[in-house]
């Protein structure tokens, strides 16, 4: 119940004390002022988030000055435009202009004559004409300064065409990696990130909650338990790259038979390598377990003893009490810890680079024993590149990452809302 009870000063039977009256007024005024301050802080937080997200979205659409290395007019037969070209004609053109190896690869993927007209047109454009994004602009710049951009482009890049480019497209999400920002995609990175985060949740959640239960319900206040408690608080502050180094030394090197899958017969022991999704997941799980434990501890501690006593009074064992009474009431706090830690783990870069996440990889991960790359690593790499267009695809990748994060957390948030209720 959150309603403000009104102070029934009108119902007082004693004669109204003027000092009391002004005091009440002051207290109410103070309360109202502070209420606005609290509301303002929330608004500031929301504004900060909105500004951040908007600046990122700003870069996912915009004008781009595209230059073709080979003008389309030189490739296409005279009189035909790119939209009129049939796949049969495209086949012939490709055979003449593209290296034989590349042509063979394309044919093996899907014979050119069997593709749709749009795909054939795209092939001609990307394989032969080879577009390059010479400069790009954000959405706000494109909307507000379009004439200046127009003038700038005609002056600096006379050969270039100014198009309104949508960077966050379905092709972007489903294409594999490439060095060309116009054709690069993030499917490999998405799969890597998702595989890892699933392992992280499966490993970290039970261990974290288990340790929290132990520390709050079972542990006596002896030396070793106090050491454990201090330990956990300390571990929450260790920089993530140290966990990366630890994970490298332990999960990748010492546990190599396990993390490379050799022990399960998954890979050839001769070439097996511990730098896999499994090792990365375990390392990140280790990173976030302390936060889950601390949140869990606080949540379990906050369950009133009266609830526990009532349960014991009816004859339940300790575990029954915990499982049926304490945990359900502590779930919201535990889930908060999980949500915050999963968010952190999803965005980690440094420890994964140490573990051995690739920055460029030619294949999608097939199992937990595969090599991998992740979204944050791609984003980090692209933001460091000089070409404008990389900034745009980095922004698009960030949006995808945030959407995935929200989706991942949605279950936890739903559960948290369901279990969240005030205790007496």
């Amino acid at each position, binding site marked *: 119940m959150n309603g403000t009870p009104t102070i029934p000063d009108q119902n007082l039977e004693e004669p109204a004390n003027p000092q009391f009256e002004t005091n009440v007024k002051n207290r109410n005024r103070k309360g109202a002022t502070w209420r606005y301050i609290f509301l303002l802080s929330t608004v500031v937080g929301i504004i900060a988030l909105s500004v951040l997200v908007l600046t990122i979205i700003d870069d996912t659409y915009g004008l781009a000055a595209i230059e073709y290395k080979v003008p389309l007019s030189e490739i296409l037969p005279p009189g035909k435009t790119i939209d009129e070209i049939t796949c049969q004609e495209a086949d012939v053109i490709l055979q003449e202009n593209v290296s034989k190896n590349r042509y063979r690869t394309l044919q093996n993927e899907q014979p050119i004559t069997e593709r749709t007209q749009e795909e054939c047109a795209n092939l001609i454009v990307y394989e032969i004409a080879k577009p390059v994004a010479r400069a790009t602009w954000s959405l706000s710049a494109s909307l507000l300064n379009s004439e200046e951009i127009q003038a700038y482009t005609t002056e600096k890049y006379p050969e270039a065409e100014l198009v309104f480019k949508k960077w966050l497209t379905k092709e972007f999400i489903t294409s594999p990696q490439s060095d060309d920002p116009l054709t690069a995609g993030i499917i490999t990175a998405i799969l890597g990130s998702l595989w890892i985060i699933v392992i992280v949740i499966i490993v970290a959640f039970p261990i974290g909650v288990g340790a929290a239960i132990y520390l709050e319900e079972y542990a006596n206040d002896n030396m070793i338990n106090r050491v454990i408690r201090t330990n956990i608080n300390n571990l929450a502050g260790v920089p993530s790259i140290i966990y990366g180094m630890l994970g490298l030394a332990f999960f990748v090197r010492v546990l190599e038979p396990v993390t490379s899958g050799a022990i399960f017969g998954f890979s050839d022991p001769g070439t097996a*390598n511990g730098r896999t999704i499994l090792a990365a997941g375990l390392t990140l799980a280790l990173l976030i377990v302390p936060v889950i434990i601390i949140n869990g501890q606080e949540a379990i501690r906050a369950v009133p003893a009266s609830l526990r006593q009532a349960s014991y009074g009816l004859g339940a064992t300790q575990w029954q009490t915990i499982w049926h009474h304490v945990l359900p009431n502590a779930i919201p706090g535990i889930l908060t810890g999980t949500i915050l830690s999963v968010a952190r783990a999803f965005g980690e870069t440094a420890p994964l680079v140490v573990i051995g*996440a690739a920055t460029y990889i030619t294949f999608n991960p097939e199992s937990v024993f595969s090599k991998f790359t992740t979204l944050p690593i791609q984003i980090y790499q692209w*933001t*460091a*590149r*000089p070409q404008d267009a990389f900034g745009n695809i980095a922004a698009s990748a960030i949006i995808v990452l945030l959407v995935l994060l929200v989706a991942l957390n949605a279950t936890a948030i739903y559960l948290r809302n369901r279990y969240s209720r005030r205790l007496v």
Partner: protein
Amino acid sequence: MNRKLLIAISALLLITTLLAACGGQATEAPAPAEPTAAPVEEATSPAEEPAAEPTAEMPMESGSMLPEIDPATVTGDIVTAGSSTVFPLSEAVANLFKEEGYPGNLTIDSVGTGGGFERFCKAGETDIANASRAIKEEETANCAAIDRTPVEFRIGTDALAVVVNQDNDFLADITSAELAKAFSSEVTQWSEIRPEWPAENILRFSPGTDSGTFDYFVEAVMDSAYEGDGEGEKQILSAANIQFSEDDNVLVQGVAGSPYAIGYFGYAYLSENEDVIKPVSVDGIVPTEETAENGEYPLARPLFIYSDAGVLSAKPQVASFIAFYLSRVNEVIQDAGYFPASEAALNEATQNWCAATGLCQ
């Protein structure tokens, strides 16, 4: 003995196919450079050392001695790691390799030159190390400890651009000596270098001490102006108003922020930001493809990849990839933002490849 026989046989195979290829233009020439996969029944002559006579092929350009590689016939994994500067280049070549049909697993980790050598020479985990500097003695010693001898392949050039703000109206050319002064603790204001320059603080922007660019600048510019072991480095590290950053994009922001700023970083970051910064010619020479390639421009640093002869023979796909790299790198190097290595350097790399694999000629 067995391995030499196989090498000889595949060398002969190669020669025969090259001869065939030389005759016609667009003939299919799948020349598997894989000694272990070479069909033994095609042996046409007894085992001979591949110190064969020079064939009718006279090496005309640097690439002509390398065998033609068809990526679709290359099988097996390739693991590379190293410099973040070389990364865009390796990524472009690897992408080309994949597009032309390579079916296997290729990974490139961008962990820095130091990390690349660590994995190559200490852990022996990678097949190729990407490096923006030459390998150091300690690292070679580590390699020796795990039975690896690094083979160097020069694959490109990164020109260092010295840049100033677009609104800088007084600086167009600087001598090497003045450049060293500009980044030293000797002077604080522009006018102390040349009296006609404004009496304003020099705002300096430099890559961090962990960067190969920094090392190269110290070596090429500071050390030649300041005698003494480590003196050049001391000068730049104790300079006033110097700001370091590990991200070159961030350095661009820095220089773009003031007309009295000066900075240096890879050429690619200049060419992409020419609306806010502009280059300064060093000793009268502006970095262009020519001047970077032929060595005229004084601040052009080499880019390398390293491998090992043992790796090249145990994993023939690595040998194929490097051969592919050396022959195709100049197609993609401009887009990546770098300049081609000189003919001589690429020839030397080719020679190194041939010596390590024995698959040429």
